[in-house]
C-alpha cells in the first residue's frame, strides 16, 4: 500500500490511512453526484456516449492506481459518514432537478427498484432462493394499494404497509412447495407464479383487465402528494419530488434494517442455510423456518415498493409487472454484487437510467442487459461491487 501512487502526492502522503480513505470516499461521492447531474442533464446522444466512456475510463484508471480500495475502505471504516454522503448526493440531485418531472420520476424509480432489490437480496443473496417473479410481487403491492385507495379510507401510509403484507402473504404460500425441495426449484415455482399472476390480471375485470386501473395518491397528514410544492419565495418543486423523498426515506430505513439483518445471528443463519443445508440442519438450523422468514421479509419490501410505485405512477396495468421486469430486477442483483446492498445502487442506476437516456438502445435493452450480466459474471463473477466479509459491528474492526 505504501508505495502506492497516491502516496507520492505530497499533501495526501501526510494523511493517515483512515483519513485518506475518508477523503477518497467523500471525493468519490462528490464526483459521482456531479457526474450524475451532468449525465442526467445531457440530451445529445454523443454527449451521453462521451460521458459513459469517461465514467468507464475514470473508474478503470482509478482502480488501476489502487484508489478504489480506499473508497471501499471508506465505506467500511466510516460507514455512517459515507451513508450520509450518499443520501446527500440523492438530495442534491433532487434539488437540482426539482422542476423536471421526468428526471425525478426516473430517480424515484431507481430508488424503488433498489428497495425491491433489497428484498431480493435477502431472498437470493442471503438465502439462495431465486425469485423470478419480483415484478409480480411489486404488482401484488401495487394492485393492493390501488384497490385500497379506491374503495376504503385506509390512510395511504398504512396502505404501503398492507401492500407489503399482502405480497409477504402470497410469498408465504408460494414458498411452501419450495421447502420440500433442494436447489433452484424456487426458480420454477416463481416463474409459474409470474405467469399465473399475469393471466389473472389480464382476465380480472374488477382490476381493470389488460387496460389496468387508476390509483389514488399518497397523502401524509392530510397533505396530498400529487400537488407540487410552491413556496412564497418562488420555489417550485414537481409533485414527483414528494414521491422521490418518500421513496428515499423508505429506502434508508430498509437499507439500515437489511444491513443489521446481515450483521446478526439471523444473517449468519441465512448464509449457513444457503451454503450447506445438510450441515446447517446438523447444527440445529431449521431450514424451513429461515426460508419462510427470509422470503417473507424480502417480499414485504418488494410489495411495499410496489404500493408506492402505483401511487406515484397514478395508473397501473399488467404490462408494468411483466416477466421481463422480473428479470430486470434479478439482473440488478446479479450486476450489483449478490448480497451487497451498495451494489444495488450502482446496478439499479445503470439498468433504469441508461435505456431512458439512450433512446436508441430502448428496443435492445434486454439484449444489452443480458450481455452486460454475462460480461460481468465472466470478468467479475461476484458482481460490480462484491459483498465483503461480515462485519457485525460497523467500524468495530477487531470484532468483525
Amino acid at each position, binding site marked *: 500500500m505504501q508505495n502506492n501512487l497516491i502516496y507520492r502526492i505530497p499533501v495526501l502522503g501526510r494523511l493517515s490511512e483512515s483519513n485518506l480513505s475518508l477523503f477518497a470516499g467523500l471525493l468519490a461521492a462528490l464526483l459521482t453526484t456531479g457526474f450524475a447531474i451532468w449525465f442526467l442533464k445531457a440530451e445529445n446522444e454523443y454527449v451521453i456516449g462521451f460521458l459513459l466512456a469517461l465514467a468507464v475510463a475514470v473508474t478503470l484508471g482509478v482502480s488501476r492506481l489502487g484508489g478504489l480500495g480506499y473508497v471501499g475502505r471508506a465505506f467500511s471504516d466510516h460507514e455512517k459518514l459515507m451513508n450520509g454522503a450518499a443520501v446527500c448526493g440523492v438530495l442534491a440531485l433532487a434539488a437540482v432537478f426539482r422542476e423536471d418531472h421526468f428526471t425525478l420520476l426516473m430517480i424515484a424509480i431507481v430508488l424503488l427498484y433498489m428497495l425491491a432489490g433489497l428484498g431480493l437480496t435477502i431472498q437470493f443473496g442471503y438465502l439462495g432462493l431465486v425469485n423470478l417473479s419480483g415484478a409480480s410481487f411489486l404488482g401484488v403491492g401495487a394492485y393492493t394499494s390501488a384497490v385500497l385507495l379506491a374503495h376504503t379510507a385506509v390512510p395511504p401510509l398504512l396502505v404501503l404497509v398492507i401492500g407489503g403484507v399482502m405480497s409477504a402473504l402470497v410469498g408465504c404460500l408460494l414458498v411452501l412447495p419450495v421447502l420440500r425441495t433442494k436447489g433452484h426449484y424456487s426458480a420454477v415455482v416463481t416463474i409459474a407464479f409470474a405467469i399465473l399472476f399475469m393471466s389473472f390480471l389480464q382476465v380480472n375485470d374488477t382490476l381493470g383487465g389488460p387496460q389496468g386501473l387508476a390509483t389514488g395518491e399518497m397523502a401524509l397528514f392530510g397533505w396530498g402528494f400529487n400537488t407540487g410544492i410552491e413556496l412564497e419565495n418562488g420555489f417550485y418543486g414537481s409533485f414527483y419530488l414528494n414521491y422521490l423523498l418518500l421513496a428515499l426515506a423508505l429506502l434508508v430505513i430498509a437499507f439500515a434494517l437489511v444491513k443489521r439483518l446481515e450483521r446478526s445471528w439471523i444473517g449468519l443463519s441465512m448464509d449457513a442455510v444457503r451454503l450447506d443445508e445438510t450441515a446447517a*440442519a446438523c*447444527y440445529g438450523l431449521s431450514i424451513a423456518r429461515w426460508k419462510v422468514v427470509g422470503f417473507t421479509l424480502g417480499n414485504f419490501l418488494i410489495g411495499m415498493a410496489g404500493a408506492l410505485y402505483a401511487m406515484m405512477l397514478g395508473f397501473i396495468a399488467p404490462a408494468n409487472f411483466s416477466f421481463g421486469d422480473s428479470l430486470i430486477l434479478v439482473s440488478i442483483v446479479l450486476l450489483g454484487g449478490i448480497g451487497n446492498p451498495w451494489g444495488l445502487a450502482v446496478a439499479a442506476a445503470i439498468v433504469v437510467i441508461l435505456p431512458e437516456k439512450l433512446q436508441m438502445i430502448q428496443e435492445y435493452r434486454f439484449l444489452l442487459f443480458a450481455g452486460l450480466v454475462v460480461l460481468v459474471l465472466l470478468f467479475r463473477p461476484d458482481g460490480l461491487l462484491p459483498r465483503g466479509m461480515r462485519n457485525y459491528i460497523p467500524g468495530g474492526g477487531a470484532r468483525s
Partner: protein
Amino acid sequence: MSASDVLLSCEGVTRRFGGLVALDHLDLEVKRGDILGFLGPNGSGKTTFFNVLTGIYDFSDGQAHFAGENISKHSAQAVYRAGIARTFQRSRMCLSLSLFDNIMVGNHKHLNLGLGFNLFRRGAFARDLEQRYEQARDLVRAFSPNLADRMSEAVGGFPMLDRRRIEICRALISQPKLLLLDEPSAGMTHEETHQLMGDILSVREHTPELSIIIIEHEMSVMERITDHCAVLNFGKKICEGTYQDVVNNPQVREAYLGIE
C-alpha cells in the same frame, strides 16, 4: 456399570437403501467420557451410522437412546439440541464465511434469534457478540494459537489441517455430550494427522465428560486415542473390544484382507 454411565445405546439399528442393507441390526453402547473407534472397510456402513444417528437418514429399524431420551425419530435439529455434534467425512464448511462465522453456526442453539434482539437491540447484541467471540477464540486457541489471530479470515483460505480443526471447534462450541468424527484425518499428511489427534486428546483432557466416536482408517491413530473399538463389515458389527483385541481378531483380519 450403572445405567447412568451409558450415554448412547443403540439396539438393532438398521438402514436399508432399496435392497442394500447398509446398516444391519447394529447394537452399540458408548459410556460417558469414552472414545470409541469405529472401523471397517470402505462401504461397510460407518458414515451411514452417523447419518442415521444424527437424523439425516431415518432409521429403517431399531432404536437409539441418548442420555435417556429415545432419539430414533428425532430430526437432525433435535439430535443436535439433545447434545450430539458431528464433523463430516468430506469437510462441510462455509468456505466463503469467516472462521468466527463458521464456529458460530455450531453454536446455533445458544444464539438469540429474535428479530427484535437482532435488528433493534443492537447494544445488547454487541455485548452478546463480544462474549461469544471471546468464547470462540478461547476454544480455537486451545487448538492453535495461530488460528486465534485469524478469526475474521475466510475459511476457504486455510489448509486442510486448519479446516479440520475449525470443523471440530464448530462441533465443540455448543458443548455437546457426544462428538462424532468422520475420518478427521482424510486428506492430511501423517504429521498433520498426528498433530490433530494430539489436539483431540487435549480437548478430552479438558472435558472428561465428553464422549467421542471416531471413524478412522489410520490404525496408529486408533491405537493412540481410543478406549475401545468396534468393527463393521457389510453393515454388521463383527467385533468389539480394545484395540488389541480387535486387531488380533481373525474375522477382522479376514474382512480387511478380503477387501485389499
